[in-house]
């Protein structure tokens, strides 16, 4: 069944949207939330399990102190208050990938609460209020075998991998975000993007949306324009890219409006986001009948972080990514577009380090967002995963600046770096890449080029300096690229003036 949709602009003519975002962050602790099992991604199924995370009868949980530390650091970075005393709670429901058929989570006593994050959308700052950030454990992962879609319907059997069961999660929940209007999809996206940057800066998670280490649930409701009320919301799950966050909000706004325009009621339900088709479909109904029967986890003692510890952790917080970005943009003189591309490519750190190694901001940006971004893209990795360090890039640029390399030769140095042939200087020496700026050799080549292209030479003599490019190309060809292009141009213009 296809949903009826209302055009986005028309939605805003009639309704005010309210957003709510629940983001799950998988922590990168060495061991799980309540046991000593390793947490590495991608291990053979059911090899990282023990009585506790398998929920075997009699086994008991022990809280991972490192996970508590990460939770507090996230909370502090989100300007939250940190509970002096809080408990875990059981969230009871049956599902085959939940070993105990309850999830050990936190309910009315989250470790972090009442925070905010200032989100930048097109140069405008939007304050997103954080209701809470709490600790919980992940579930196992079901694999449905035999069906066409990989979903449970149509499968003839299912396999469960409990490696993920018990991995520490922090769930960060916003208060209803109102007043974003037409910018609601952008605010949602920018919030998740900035939150991800913050998590990366804190170093508490791999922060890979594609691997599910950051997962967003998008709540959305519409209310009649100007009414100040909150409408019935839907919760869209499985929104695992920034672009999808934006699209899912947009889609649900259009869908809600169509339902409401038709005089019908929004069903309070969970919806699934489909990345491929860009639509949401109905999941299970979230009625009052769904009752998790929360109660305090009796196998654990309360978590009571001392104020001294909290202050100590506050001292370890990195610079706020938004503030840092503004500072670097000003220092580097990047345009908004250049800065956005830099952040989008995940190149902020490597560019900063390259600049620190003596390169100008524009040169650093040119390499990392040009040649190196292209190669990273080919390999399907981020630039910081390439076998090229900021120091390498700085050295290559220094060689260019001193005239020993031109851009074309520099690319060959990068080839050498990718092939593991050593340092830039070693590669230049081994491959014989030193540039020719000796006037004698160049002069001969320029004479040859002029002789071979009399028409072009005449144009230049007539003052059409732009035509020099064709002669430069011919010289470079003869010199197999190892010529100083600037010097070649000077020689041509001297000879033809």
């Amino acid at each position, binding site marked *: 069944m296809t949903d009826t949709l209302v055009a986005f602009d028309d939605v805003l003519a009639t309704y005010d949207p309210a957003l709510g975002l629940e983001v799950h962050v998988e922590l990168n602790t060495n061991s799980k939330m309540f046991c000593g099992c390793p947490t590495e991604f991608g291990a053979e199924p059911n090899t990282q399990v023990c009585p506790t995370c398998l929920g075997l009868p009699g086994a*008991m949980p022990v809280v991972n102190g490192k996970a508590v530390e990460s939770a507090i650091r996230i909370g502090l970075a989100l300007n939250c208050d940190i509970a002096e005393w809080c408990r875990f709670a059981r969230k009871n429901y049956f599902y085959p990938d939940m070993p105990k058929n309850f999830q050990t989570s936190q309910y009315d006593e989250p470790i972090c609460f009442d925070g905010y994050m200032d989100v930048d959308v097109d140069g405008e700052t939007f304050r997103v209020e954080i209701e809470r950030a709490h600790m919980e454990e992940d579930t196992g992962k079901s694999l449905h075998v035999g069906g066409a879609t990989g979903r449970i319907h149509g499968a003839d059997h299912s396999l469960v991998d409990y490696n993920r069961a018990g991995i520490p999660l922090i769930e960060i929940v916003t208060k209803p975000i109102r007043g974003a209007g037409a910018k609601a999809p952008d605010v949602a996206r920018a919030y998740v993007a900035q939150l991800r940057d913050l998590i990366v800066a804190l170093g508490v998670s791999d922060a890979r949306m594609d691997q599910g280490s950051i997962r967003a649930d998008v709540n959305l409701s519409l209310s009649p324009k100007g009414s100040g009320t909150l409408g019935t919301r839907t919760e869209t799950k499985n929104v695992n890219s920034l672009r999808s966050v934006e699209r899912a909000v947009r889609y649900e706004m259009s869908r809600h409006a169509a339902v409401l325009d038709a005089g019908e009621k929004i069903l309070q339900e969970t919806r699934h986001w489909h990345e491929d088709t860009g639509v949401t479909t109905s999941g299970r109904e979230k009625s009052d009948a769904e*009752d998790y029967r929360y109660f305090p986890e009796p196998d654990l003692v309360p978590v009571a972080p001392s104020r001294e510890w909290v202050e100590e952790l506050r001292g370890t917080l990195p610079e706020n990514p938004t503030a840092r970005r503004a500072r670097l943009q000003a220092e580097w003189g990047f345009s908004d577009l250049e800065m956005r591309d830099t952040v989008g490519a995940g190149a902020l750190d490597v560019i900063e380090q390259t600049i620190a190694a003596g390169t100008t901001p524009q040169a650093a940006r040119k390499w990392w967002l040009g040649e190196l971004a292209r190669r990273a893209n080919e390999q399907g990795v981020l630039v910081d995963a390439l076998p090229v360090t900021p120091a390498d890039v700085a050295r290559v640029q220094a060689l260019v600046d001193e005239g020993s390399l031109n851009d074309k030769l520099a690319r060959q140095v990068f080839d050498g770096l990718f092939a593991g042939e050593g340092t830039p200087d070693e590669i230049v020496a081994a491959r014989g890449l030193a540039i020719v700026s000796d006037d004698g050799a160049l002069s001969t080549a320029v004479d040859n080029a002029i002789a071979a292209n009399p028409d072009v030479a005449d144009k230049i003599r007539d003052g059409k300096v732009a035509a020099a490019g064709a002669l430069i190309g011919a010289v470079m060809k003869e010199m197999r690229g190892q010529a100083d292009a600037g010097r070649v141009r000077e020689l041509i213009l001297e000879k033809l003036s």
Partner: protein
Amino acid sequence: MITRTAAELAAALAAGETTSVAATQAHLDRIAEVDGAVHAFLHVDAEGALAQAAESDARRAAGATRSALDGVPIAVKDVLATEGLPTTCGSKILEGWIPPYDATVVRRLKAAGLPILGKTNMDEFAMGSSTEHSAYGPTRNPWDLDRIPGGSGGGSAAAVAAFEAPLAIGTDTGGSIRQPGAVTGTVGVKPTYGGVSRYGLVALANSLDQAGPVTRTVLDSALLHEVIGGHDPLDSTSIDQPLPALVEAAKRGAAGDLSGLRVGVITEMSRQEGGLSGWQAGVLARFQESVDLLVKAGAEVVEVSCPSFVHALATYYLILPAEASSNLAKFDAMRYGLRVWPEADASAEEVMRATRDAGFGDEVKRRIILGTYALSSGYYDAYYGQAQKVRTLISRDFDAAFERADVLVSPTAPTTAFKLGAKLDDPMAMYLNDLATIPANLAGVPGISVPSGLADEDGLPTGFQILAPALADDRCYRVGAALEAALLEQWGGPLVPPEEKLS
């Protein structure tokens, strides 16, 4: 051999008068002889026990014994995970499950060198006061095979009473160690909450459960308690403090001098009127005699009132089912235990439902439903939340009482052992059997039940309960040993079940 206490056996082993293999074999023979009638065991591990006994003898020969009880065999309630040995919790739903790990208590028993004879019968998931709710048939009281041995740990108590084991481990959530002790004429101890690790104890109600010793003498309990007790990093609720000197306290108590000790008789639990009712006359008579013996030993008796205790049973039957309903959710046929297919192409959900329907007994289902209801949104505050408040009041009653008395005393159970089947169709009547033992679980304080004689009406054992403040388990042992010594002197020896009924 089998009538020796654990301390006597340990001494005989140390003196080279016998071997662990001989002692273990003697108990295995006794099990073969009487357990058909008693049914204390769900699983006997003769081979394993004898192998462990042989190792113990080898250690002793090499001068490398591991503890005072090295070589003394023991039985373990089937609610504790034992690596390689079936663990059913008295339920069909765990039939065939062999745990891949040992409970901390079991690990400590093995580390101390005690051969494990087998696993003892219990009410399903420890829900009951008679062991009649075991899915594998009831255990019978060695004093009268037509009567219940108490519960939920009737198997452990009956095994010790019938000389099938010198020692056993029980677990006590509302009296499951102490009440069976009382009705089988044995000693049972519920340690301070957090005093003995719960890791590997299949939880009934996590905030109430506590494993402890089941023995025939107070000293044996102290010896066993020192083996299994103490901090365990795998149990977050375990207390990170050294145990008090329990064996020393038992020995000091046995010397008989209780001068300066203040014994508080709990008004609500020691007379027919003015509090909880339903006390059997013979039980109260034996209780009063024991109080008199304590006075004779130099103790001062004060009467203390704990008015909130009358609400303990109701509080308990909200907290326990709530926690249990959640604990028991894991039994869903997905990973271990029973799996029932209602039809060939059933969904996971249908398999869960069919398995739980077939695998759980009525009492378990009753409590799951009660607990699910008590935790439901809209009812939580009225039931679970309210129960936690009353629990706090009960703790305050204890605090106030322990201001005035060093220990508190009462009969352990209101009646002697009743007939099998007598209360099976009346859950409330069954629940009432635990009214004197439940307050200690709600407050986390330690308690011991010591045999106090036989009731005049029926000639069956009665129990005397001694409660102490949290962490002061040593007081239970001191007073218990003093009472035991005085009673043994009066009786001219221990009270034992009539042997002719067993064979």
